[in-house]
């Protein structure tokens, strides 16, 4: 039986399968299908300082092997999140990766401070795919300087025991460039990838299907793009851990990410089609490692890159 534990910077998780931010709320609803403490961790929906309504409906459209969403980060605000959601996760003995979001650098700093020292918080995931109010609404993750400013500020403000992962957007010309800016600013690792910007037109109403016009594309459709981002960032920063995500639905999908360079994976959209997907993916991944004679997750991380180098030099 393969050793399933994995390390994300200074944190060791019992296994490499997590939920994805925004696809599992704070774990409570999924707990009726499986024990959330069995996962590597629960990645919570991005939280902001104050309560947010989110966007007008319709908020989703199904697309071929994917979906578009435009939730707009609906949430209760950090105080309620700590009092209710984080407390509940702590009670279950589950590990939380808390995703934080903001529209100013100050928002992120405030959130990191509030979460410092909380025993249930294994790690912070910094969702920088948010419009930066200080820069005419340009998304932080699309600008190396804005990304580095947020990540640097969070790293300084956060509990030193909590690794800080920068969650990057694939909608950039050069993801390695953005990753470098985050690494230089102190990111302990990367979460790859957030959704791709997309639009669906409703051919009945002859107008965009989503209330917010555009939305984020997720699901199996985007998997090859996600694996490519993981590959590129792992190639550039082999010593920084990656939490990979984007269209993972099976253990073999998860294995693709790990072979490309991810140390752990998040199962997102697949949960909507199969609420027990995360534990199923975990079981399938374990079996897949065993079948291939891979003794541990760690042995498999980035193996495809090593095999490719061997192939080219042969």
């Amino acid at each position: 039986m393969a050793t399933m534990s994995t390390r994300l910077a200074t944190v060791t998780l019992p296994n490499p399968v997590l939920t994805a931010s925004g696809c599992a709320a704070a774990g409570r609803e999924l707990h009726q299908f499986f024990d959330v403490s069995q996962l590597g961790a629960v990645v919570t929906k991005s939280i902001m300082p104050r309560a947010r309504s989110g966007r007008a409906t319709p908020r989703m459209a199904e697309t071929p092997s994917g979906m578009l969403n435009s939730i707009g980060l609906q949430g209760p605000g950090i105080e309620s999140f700590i009092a209710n959601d984080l407390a509940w996760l702590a009670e279950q003995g589950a590990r939380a990766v808390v995703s934080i979001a903001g529209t100013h650098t100050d928002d992120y700093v405030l959130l990191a401070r509030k979460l410092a020292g909380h025993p249930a918080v294994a790690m912070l995931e910094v969702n920088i795919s948010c419009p930066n109010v200080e820069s005419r609404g340009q998304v932080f993750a699309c600008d190396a300087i804005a990304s580095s400013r947020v990540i640097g500020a969070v790293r300084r403000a956060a509990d030193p025991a909590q690794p800080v992962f920068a969650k990057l957007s694939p909608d950039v010309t050069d993801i390695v460039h953005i990753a470098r800016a985050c690494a230089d600013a102190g990111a302990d690792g990367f979460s790859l990838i957030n959704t791709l910007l997309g639009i669906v037109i409703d051919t009945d109403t002859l107008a965009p299907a989503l209330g917010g016009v555009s939305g984020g594309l997720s699901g199996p459709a985007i998997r090859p793009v996600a694996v490519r981002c993981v590959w590129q960032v792992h190639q550039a920063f082999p010593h920084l851990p990656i939490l990979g995500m984007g269209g993972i639905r099976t253990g073999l999908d998860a294995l693709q990410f790990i072979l490309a360079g991810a140390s752990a994976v998040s199962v997102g959209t697949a949960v909507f089609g199969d609420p027990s997907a995360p534990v199923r993916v975990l079981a399938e991944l374990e079996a897949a490692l065993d079948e291939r004679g891979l003794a541990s997750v760690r042995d498999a991380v980035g193996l495809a890159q090593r095999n490719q180098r061997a192939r080219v030099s042969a």
Partner: protein
Amino acid sequence: MTAVQLQAEILSVQRVGEYLQFTVVAPEIADGFQPGHFVAVAVGGAQSSMILRRAFALSGATPSDRFAGTVQFVVAAHGPGTQWLVGRTAGELLDIVGPLGNPFPTPSGATRAVLVGGGYGSAPLLPLAQVLLDNGSEVEFVLGAATAARLFGELAAKRMVGRVTVTTDDGSAGEKGLVTDVLPEAIERSSAEIVYACGPMAMLQAVGDIAGKHAIRAQVAVEESMACGIGVCMTCVLPVRAADGTSRFVRSCVDGPVFDALNVRWRDVGRLPGDLLGADAMGGH
């Protein structure tokens, strides 16, 4: 109520007008069933490009007894997912999650109720009528649809209660018109204390207005587009007023699908009203 996910064998598929009624073996769902519950069904098989489940209100359930419990739901062929579903036959397995959502609230004692169904919206009202009747309540039905073929449950309703008023948009069955044309009379005639309704949003809003004018409550089951059905994605929200006067976007899958019509801000569905909790924080996004 805890939801389960299971592979449910299709026991039978019956044509009812333009609809198909599925009866599937799902003891864990049947045993906890209350009217208003819905199920979410995976469509298209293992290699489907359709990654989301489709929601269907339960039109009935037979709890486990000598045989394993079964549940029923009614499918209207609409887009590709429901088109796939109506091609299924007895003996095949469906991947089902349920029971989902909050059931219709029913008084502990007897009441006088009018049940208003639009199209397949009557499906969850049939078992609801039975619960109310069992409580000693007086029940009457108002069923409407675009055409006669899109009516559902007229016969079953007639078998249960004395009064069933039918309307169709084209007059192909019952009175020509909308359910809301005949609802005021039905409320008055029966001195109804409550209205229950399920159907298109515009109908629910109108039903709520009419109930309001008669100073009675309307409990309505809404149908919002849902990605997860279990409360984790936040796609299915409606602007709803709480007891304290604050309005929020609430999830119709786990906080609904049944709402008191009075609390739903119908005119703001599809908008972001400025006074919603957290709307002020939306500047950025």
